[in-house]
């Protein structure tokens, strides 16, 4: 006789809202064929509900955490948690989704009939990643990852008028599936080594037993890190990123990159810092190595790019390295803050790319940015601030983020990593500066100003977040500090 499972609606409320929302979008589209504007409001409402529900969750989670009752934070027999870490990441995901959709809305509209499906896919992908960041079970995590990833594969191929889009889709798909297989094999080996899929269970196991020959666990960890490293485009698992960023529809790349990075790093941080914190001595150097390789390779390669999207992709590789230093630092708040800031900036930056490339998402070569400072001063100004924010210039939030993760890493004893990181961030300046040079300092023919649609709200928010959290970072830092994993 099967006893009915206990359903914790609170724990999955936002995901439920998004999933139902996705279904709603599809149904409404089939039934009424609404104007894009209506669809837009609908999606906005869905995301608002999702975001609102996360805030509700935060209240619940805070109560539970205050009473020291971590048990109640775990729901669905340990499949999922509603700890601060999950909720914070989830909120970032939803926010990035909203901004990303706004940035790509003109592209979505240009898809015509397929726009609704694209929107639904975006919502579903967010649902998947949202489950992923909340998962307390590696298989659950894998499911969330796949839900999100598969949706992204499709999104990458949506700009079907462009040959590059297809290439991006197939590359993303093949390599992504390959990485997923590697990841899940790692999970299987971890299961073999510890007898559990649950993150808490694994930690318990490692706490209780001294494992005499843990090779299988290490292989598992290595494969899991490789698989997730792929998702966050950390070197040397980054190779897909430039090609996909360049090929995928310009409007949606920001979204794709941001959510994948947020979810991937949330997973890495949770797995390594919670499940395998007892083995930190072993995996820390390896993660530090990945971090260094990412920072160096990303920065150096970004320096020689002639395409802004590729440049941003490689800068994303470098950022993966910087965030990895936060993982090395062992404190989740630094990682979360960085992720939040970076996600917003990334979406904002790609919003600019989307505007410059136009709705059909054509090229994004550096040449097209020549004289942008004259053509569209506000757009160029926003882009400049975002780029400098990503570069980590003080008084932008990017600096606070970098400072946070560097401090954590230094405190862990990884001084050399911090030194490499600060030097890499100088090289990073060099390529961000290149874009700014082209925008402001190169003379241009006088072209018409670019038409900016809903992207302007994205940019306003992203720029505001970059500067305000750069000057008054404490609000977000406090939140991140409270957002602890169980």
């Amino acid at each position, binding site marked *: 006789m099967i006893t009915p499972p206990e359903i914790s609606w609170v724990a999955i409320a936002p995901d439920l809202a998004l999933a139902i929302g996705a279904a709603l979008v599809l149904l409404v589209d089939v039934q009424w064929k609404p104007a894009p504007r209506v669809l837009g409001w609908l999606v906005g409402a869905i995301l608002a509900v999702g975001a609102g529900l996360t805030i509700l969750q935060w209240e619940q989670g805070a109560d539970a955490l205050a009473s020291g009752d971590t048990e109640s934070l775990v729901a669905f027999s340990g499949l999922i948690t509603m700890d601060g870490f999950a909720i914070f990441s989830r909120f970032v995901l939803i926010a990035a989704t909203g901004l990303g959709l706004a940035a790509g809305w003109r592209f979505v509209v240009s898809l015509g009939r397929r726009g609704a499906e694209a929107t639904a896919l975006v919502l579903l992908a967010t649902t998947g990643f949202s489950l992923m960041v909340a998962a307390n079970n590696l298989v659950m995590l894998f499911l969330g990852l796949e839900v999100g990833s598969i949706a992204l594969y499709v999104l990458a191929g949506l700009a079907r008028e462009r040959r590059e889009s297809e290439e991006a889709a197939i590359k993303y798909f093949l*390599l992504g599936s390959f990485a997923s297989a590697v990841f899940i094999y790692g999970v299987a080996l971890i299961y073999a080594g510890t007898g559990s899929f649950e993150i808490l269970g694994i930690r318990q196991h490692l706490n209780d037993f001294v494992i005499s020959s*843990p090779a299988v666990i290490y292989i598992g960890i*290595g494969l899991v890190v490789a698989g997730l490293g792929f998702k966050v485009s950390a070197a*040397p698992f980054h*190779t897909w990123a430039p*090609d996909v960023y360049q090929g995928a529809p310009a409007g949606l790349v920001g979204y794709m990159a941001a959510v994948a990075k947020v979810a991937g790093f949330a997973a890495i941080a949770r797995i390594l810092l919670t499940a395998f914190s007892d083995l930190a001595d072993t995996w820390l150097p390896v993660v530090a190595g990945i971090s260094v390789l990412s920072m160096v390779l990303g920065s150096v390669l970004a*320096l*020689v790019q002639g395409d802004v999207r590729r440049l941003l992709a490689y800068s994303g590789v470098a950022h993966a390295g910087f965030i990895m230093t936060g993982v090395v630092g062992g404190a989740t708040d630094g990682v979360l803050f960085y992720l939040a800031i970076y996600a917003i900036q990334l979406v904002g930056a790609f919003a600019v790319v989307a505007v410059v490339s136009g709705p059909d998402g054509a090229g994004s070569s550096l040449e097209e940015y020549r004289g942008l400072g004259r053509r569209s001063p506000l757009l160029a100004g926003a882009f400049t601030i975002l780029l400098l924010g990503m570069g980590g210039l003080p008084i932008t939030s990017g600096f606070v983020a970098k400072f946070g993760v560097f401090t954590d890493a230094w405190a862990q004893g990884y001084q050399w990593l911090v030194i490499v990181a600060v030097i890499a961030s100088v090289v990073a300046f060099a390529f961000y500066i290149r874009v700014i040079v082209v925008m402001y300092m190169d003379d241009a023919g006088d072209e018409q100003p670019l038409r900016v649609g809903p992207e302007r709200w994205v940019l306003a928010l992203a720029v505001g977040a970059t500067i305000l959290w750069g000057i008054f970072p404490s609000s977000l830092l406090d939140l991140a500090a409270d957002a602890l994993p169980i």
Partner: protein
Amino acid sequence: MADFVWLVIALPLAGAVFLHFFGKYVKEPLSGWMASAAIGGAFVLAAIAAVPFIQGGGEPVTISLWEWMPAIGANFELLWDPLAALMALIVTGVGTLIHVFAIGYMHGDERFHRFFTNLNLFAASMLTLVLAGNYAMLFLGWELVGLCSYLLIGFWYTRTTASAAAKKAFIVNRIGDFGFMIGLMLVFTVFGTLSFAGIFERAGQELTSGMATAIGLLFLVGATGKSAQIPLYVWLPDAMEGPTPVSALIHAATMVTAGVYVIARSAPIYEFTPVASTVVASVGALTAIWAASIALAQRDIKKVLAYSTISQLGFMFLAIGARAYVAGVFHLMTHAFFKALLFLGAGSVIHAMSDEQDMHRMGGLMRKMPLTATTMAIGALALAGIPPLAGFWSKDEILAADFARGGWFYVLWIIGLVTALLTAFYIARLWVLVFYGEPRWQEDAHPHESPRVMTLPLIALAFLSVVGGLVNTPFRLGLEHFLEPSFEGVHIQEAPTDWLTLGILAALSILAAVVGVGAGVLAYRRPPERWRRFEESFEPLWGTWELAYGVDDLYGRTLVLPGRRLAEAAAFSVDAKGVDGAVNGVGRLVRGAGDWARPLQTGFVRNYGVLFLAGALVVVVWLVASG
């Protein structure tokens, strides 16, 4: 009591400031008169303040004005003692006469008022130098007179030679200052202050002889710059590019004597270093004969006087190096009179000849400008050392003191004597070439006597050149008593006291002067072909002298050119290629690394797969191996 001496500086300074800002609104001669009045007023004030010293009852006083750089004991303070008073009187007195002369000389110049601005500024600076109460302030005046010298030499800035000469003067002086500054550093290190009062009181306790020698030699370096001694004299002949009153004031009477003044002022330090003193004297003697020999063969009237000045400054060094400070200062004073006279006379000639300076194109000017000729004759005889004119007394005292010192100073004494002979010869040559014989001037020259405003200063200076020597004769050592308070505690080399030695020495000195003058007159009163042949008979020596031993050229080839090469190498090879190349190289390296790593991204999925799997393998192996 003497608190108002700051006015002595302030008056010409005020004149300079006023003329600087409002000079262009003041009509031509008036601005010159205002400047003259300013410095004349300063002379009166200085004279009033000096009364107690003349009466023999005055005590040196230090007057503090305001703080400047207290950390190194350098404040604005004045020291008013007989030495300062004497210098101030010379500067203001001769200065006033030259100012007046310049009113006539600079007539018609479009920057007339600017000229007097600078002259007044110079007077203020020079007075700062001589009245300074500490080395820092002395250095202030020291540098400011250099500035004024720069401005005045380069007054006619459109002449490239003038600006080049101005720059050269300043830079060569700076080289001397370099030594002087290091000397000051040592002084500060030893005494912890730069104030005269503090230093001279404690000189005996703090100074070792090594340190004193070091300081003394470094001060000498500074003095060789300012007072145009070997090896830094090369700027002075070029400085003749400036207007002639400038040459008279700065490059004969006042500024160039600053080196002598500094060493005399630092007598308490030299007290402990016979070595440095001897070097001072030797440099002086060498310079004296060196420059005198060059003066023999010059054609330019001002060049003769310039080298003569260098030579006479050598005499002063010869004196103070022998610790005959009074003699040195005495010669400084008399030289100021007669050399200013000679320069102004030369100026008068040049003025009359429409800026002609080549003596070969003069001659027979006595008839055209008798007053100038007469006064210049007095000046020439004074320089030559014919008694009882001023030059005789001071020069004789120097030679006597050196003789009395004995030892190595016998050699220097002989050099001095020979120099006296040469001096008499070249100055006689100058006078004869200019004023005697047949006119050799160009067709368009219309020489005429200068206006009153120019001749009156000549007469005044001529008078001083005649009587100036009487302040300090062996019969009545007036100056020596006057200066006593300034050299308290310092051992001063006296001339021999027995009248026989003194008489023999004087006789030798007179003999040298007379022979020199006689030879000069005899050689050059003949027609041009004859004295030309006379000069040629001294070849190649004469040519060497005429080219001033080719020292400028030598410096150019051994110092200036290699220095420039070095600078070029540093700028265009080391800096642009080396240092900057390294910096840019790092940038290129990073970019190069990017370009090199780019092919990793082949675009082929399967290559990416290999990279991915290899990365995963490395991670796994690393984990297992370290676990």
